[in-house]
């Protein structure tokens, strides 16, 4: 499979790779996917006053899955929860020039974004909007 330059770039230099302590109040964690399916993504956000001030990811998956989650953390940073929630998988597909067989990687990234936001809202009991 030939990768786009952007996928290769994210694979070689993943943005925001790592973890926040899950228990911290301002951290929301989303884990999606399954090992049997060949990809698991963990996205974490750190929220201050309704805005995502930092994000981190860890991914088990192919190069496109790694690039999709790396890109997602980049895009989430600085956005409000409501704005981040609107990130669409199709935008990730476009930005990374993902071929049709890799679209599921972008879907997973969108799911991970939503899961992290949901987790944060559940934790804080707020809708997080400002």
């Amino acid at each position, binding site marked *: *499979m030939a*990768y786009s330059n952007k996928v*290769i770039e994210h*694979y070689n230099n*993943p943005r925001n*790779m790592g*973890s926040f302590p899950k228990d911290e109040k301002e951290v929301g964690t989303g*884990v*999606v*996917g*399954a*090992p*049997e*399916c*060949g*990809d*698991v*993504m*963990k996205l974490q956000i750190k929220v201050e006053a309704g805005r995502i001030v930092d994000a981190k990811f*860890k*991914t*088990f*998956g*192919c*190069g*496109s*899955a*790694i690039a999709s989650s790396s890109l997602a953390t980049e895009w989430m940073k600085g956005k409000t929860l409501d704005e981040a929630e609107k990130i669409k998988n199709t935008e990730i597909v476009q930005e990374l020039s993902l071929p049709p*067989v890799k679209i*599921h990687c972008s*879907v*997973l990234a969108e*799911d991970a974004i939503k*899961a992290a936001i949901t987790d944060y809202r559940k934790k804080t009991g707020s809708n997080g909007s400002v």
Partner: protein
Amino acid sequence: MKLPIYMDNHSTTPMDPRVLEAMLPYFTEKFGNAASRNHSFGWEAEQAVDDARRQIATLIHADPKEIIFTSGATESDNLALKGVVEMYREKGDHMITSVTEHRAVLDTVKRLEKQGIKVTYLPVDKEGFVNPEDLNKAITDKTILISIMMANNEIGTINPVVEIGKIAKSRGVLFHCDATQGVGKIPVDVEAMGIDLMSFSAHKIYGPKGVGALYVRRKNPRVRLAPMIDGGGHERGMRSGTLPVPLIMGFGKACEICMQVMPDESKRLTQLRERLKEGILKNLDEVYLNGHSTKRLPNNMNLSFAYVEGESVLMGLKEIAVSSGSACTSATLEPSYVIRALGVGSDLAHSSIRFGLGRFNTEEEVDYVVKRVTETIQKLRAMSPLYEMAKEGVDLKTVQWASH
């Protein structure tokens, strides 16, 4: 040492320069059609083909007349299975194969199934072996063919072919063996192994692409085949079409070289394989060997690296050519059916990497690959949420995954 490094020799092999040399005259000067019986151009080509046929037959302990040239092992598998079923259909409608066969066998068998043939798919054990006792039990009075591979193309497991051949003979069933990965790598003797039909190919043994052979037994029993390609009646009527003389010359030379170098080469490749395995296992934890530790092809190493996905490993090893059983590297998005058949979890199937050593690999290359595999796996594990969870003591099998 030159980059990139080629370590995917189950897929194909580079041609040995001696093979190319043997082929060259037959493109231009000696271009005759081996079927032209009435002039010297034809005689010259026919003589050349006869010589090559003898070289090939010698490698597998067959009679030269038992070698039928094809375009490659896929065609040989198709011809053997479809040809036998069509010819012996009146005798029975049942055949036996195994779940880890190559696609060229499995897809052919599926087509035959659609045409009404009943098929028993034998399972394999956790190291990839077919159990001869299972085979014996599966044979009925309607069984006309057994098709079991010699050595597996992914995990290198070498089946107990002699025992399978004995059972086939004692029960009076024809035995086809896909020996594409075995011929030229391990000693093959169609007599001692009781093989009636055998597929193999030139490009897996440092010969050219586009030519292969089907061994078809002529005595005890005389195997008959319905041809798939009709025409001039070449190859005892089993496979018509003008013989590709240059390719056949290359095939013959490749077999001759294998015959000469096999004892030394297999010893050398086994040493390289063990060096590769020990190097990786010394540097990394939770690496699992797929297949058997010794009853495997000398050049095959297949490892699963827990918590990382195969395609991302290949991406990290961009200057090294190896392959993966990961779904992401296949058109079907399913992880390797061979690794799955061993009973390992599909997470480990997604994590498998196949190293295929060959004649031109060196110790220096192996050491380089060990180093680069180690770096890549370490990097990907640092990135893996599964590795993190496992190190925190989470049992991944008890996690409720959100499947997609």
